[in-house]
């Protein structure tokens, strides 16, 4: 397997995540898209670690997984609070900071 195929997969996943973050309205789905982006990065890290025979990429991937878990915890709490306040998970309605 060539490195390129991993990178293409990773780019595809990342772009899907970006699209989800920008286009989705539902806060939960936005969080999921963020996960997609994070995992795209993870694929990159692991791929390069394997390619360069350097363990530090894998270590970083592990860090990312850990932090992603924490991030999901905080993110889901925020989404839950938004839902409670707005009676909806729709992020377009959260525009109180409008100038």
């Amino acid at each position, binding site marked *: 397997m060539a490195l390129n195929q991993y990178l293409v997969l990773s780019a595809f996943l990342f772009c899907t995540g970006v699209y989800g*973050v*920008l286009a989705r309205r539902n806060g939960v789905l936005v969080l999921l898209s963020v996960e997609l982006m994070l995992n795209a990065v993870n694929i990159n890290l692991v791929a390069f670690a394997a390619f360069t025979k350097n363990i530090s990429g894998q270590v970083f991937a592990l860090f990312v997984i850990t932090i992603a878990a924490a991030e999901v915890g905080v993110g889901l709490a925020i989404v839950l609070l938004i839902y409670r306040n707005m009676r909806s998970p729709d992020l377009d309605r*959260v525009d109180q*900071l409008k100038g």
Partner: protein
Amino acid sequence: MLSNAWLIPLLPAAGFVVILFVGKHLPRKGAEVAITTVGASFVLACIVLVQWIQRVEDHDAHGALRGFGRALLPASEGGLTAVDHSFTWWQNGAVKFAVGTHIDGLAVMMLFMVTLVSLLVHVYSTVYMEGDRRFTHYFALLNLFTASMLLLVVADNTLEVLIGWELVGFCSFALIGHWWEEKPNSDAAVKAFLTTRVGDVGLMIGIIVLFFAAGSFDIAAINAKALNGDISHTLLLVSASCLLIGIIGKSGQFPLHTWLPDAMAGPTPVSALIHAATMVVAGVYLGARLYPVFFRGFSIANGGVNAMALIGGITIVIGAVLAFVQRDIKKVLAYSTISQLGYMVMALGVGAWVAAIFHLFTHAFFKALLFLGAGSVSHSGSHHSFDMKSDMGGLRKYMPVTFVTFVIGSLALAGIFPLAGFWSKDEILVTAGTSGFTAFLVVGLVGAFLTAAYMTRCVYLTFFGEFRGHGEPHESPRTLTVPLVVLAVMSVAAGFINAEAFGVEKFRDWFEGAVSLPALQHPAFDYPKAVISVTVAVIGIGIAAYLWFQREELGPFRGFTQRNALARAGYRFLENKYYLDDLYEKVIVYGIKAPIARISYWFDQHVIDGAVNGVGRGTAKVARETYEVVDQKVVDGAVNGLAETTGETGGLLRYVQSGRVQRYALTLFAAVGVLSLALWLVY
């Protein structure tokens, strides 16, 4: 000491500076400094006097041995010389401006007289001016006054004389106006200053003419040249006439005498000083100092009539007549001074040089005595009033010392034998009679008659009759009476040093010595003339005494001036002082002042006001333009424009701030995309 006489004026001048700066902080408010310095000057003047007399007597003794008679021979023939001490002040080309002292008989006599009278006036003032609000200031000026007069006396050149002359004028101005809070006093001071100033212009022109005529400011040189005939008669006549105008202004001669009676506004000791020792005798002194110029200029040797004698003669009579109509005791004395100064100027005019300065010498004592006596009367008798008719009378019982000394002074002034005034006045009259001036002998006799009469009136109104004032009159304290007694003794004794009847001519021997003079006549004592002059004076006293003491018996004469139109007109004419003041103020001063005032008013209205208004209007216009253009358009425009621009920018930017997180994220990613593209394109 004769060559160090410069110390004598310097001491009071130093006293003036000390009093001015530290006087107020001293225990006696500066009076002690004033009296110490003037006292030291007096001691030095006495030493100078003694040494000078020694010098004259020694010289006479030597002269007699070598076959010369008196000290009067010219210096070139072994005569007595003056003591000069001078140095060059500054030099302009060949012309040297020296400053120094010239001590001859005349200067020695004046030094002694000025310092003595000034010292007595100082002592007297400590009580008379007690509690005055400008006590220190008064003593400072009194010191400067004395110093200025002494400078004038010792001066060896005409410029120094001019400096002393002007300083004396300034000091008398300041002291006459001592109580300047009251308008008449400051008016009197200004009048004294301006009137003498008219004469000063003459003095200045005279000095300048003499400088070009003689090529020097040195008095000895000028006198020598005038005597030798090195200066043409025309030039001498011009300079003598100009100097005479100076004398007229300073010594209160007709027609510039009007300032002198008004000068009574000053404190009485100042009047005594002005009238006896300092201010007014400066003119006579100048006449005696530059006598050869006058003698040759007015051709005095020819007899007849000349300007100097004429002015003096007129002054004797008009001054004496005016003394009759005064209510104010000091004004009587002031007019008496005018009249006596007339005697001195007339004496100079008729060639009686010794008699003139002898009269100056004796007059100083009895006139100072009379003024200080009047001050004593007002201080202790009449509650600071000088009005004889309403506040005095009968004071002889309450003030015996003042009364006796005042009467001695009056008799001396009237020329009664054997008091000082007799000897000096008699000498003037005798000289006038024997050197071809018979008319002035008669004028002098008329003056003697009038003098005796008005002094009798003055003494009667002050000391006899019933006391008309209020309060308790009492004798003055000792500080006031001691100077009176000293002056009374001098008034009695001073005449005997030139009592020709007894063959004593010491005054002439001592004080004529080393003065450059033309050959003068020294007539011997003339018994008939002396008897006539004393008789005339006694008749004057008798008539005045009869009119005043026997008033009740006079009947038809009482109220004469009210009933008789001619007498009333004459009285009014005298009361208005011959209308001379009106002539000066309303005709001369107004005639000059009114057109000047009109022109000044026009100039003020049109030129100055026009300029001021123009500037005002221009400023207003510029201000309006500035407001409209600079302030409103530029400054406000910039401020408002900045605010509007900011507002518009903000309005545009608020679309970016939508509050939607996803849009921010889009912007973020778009920016990352653009930057990545840019990075890629670059590399």
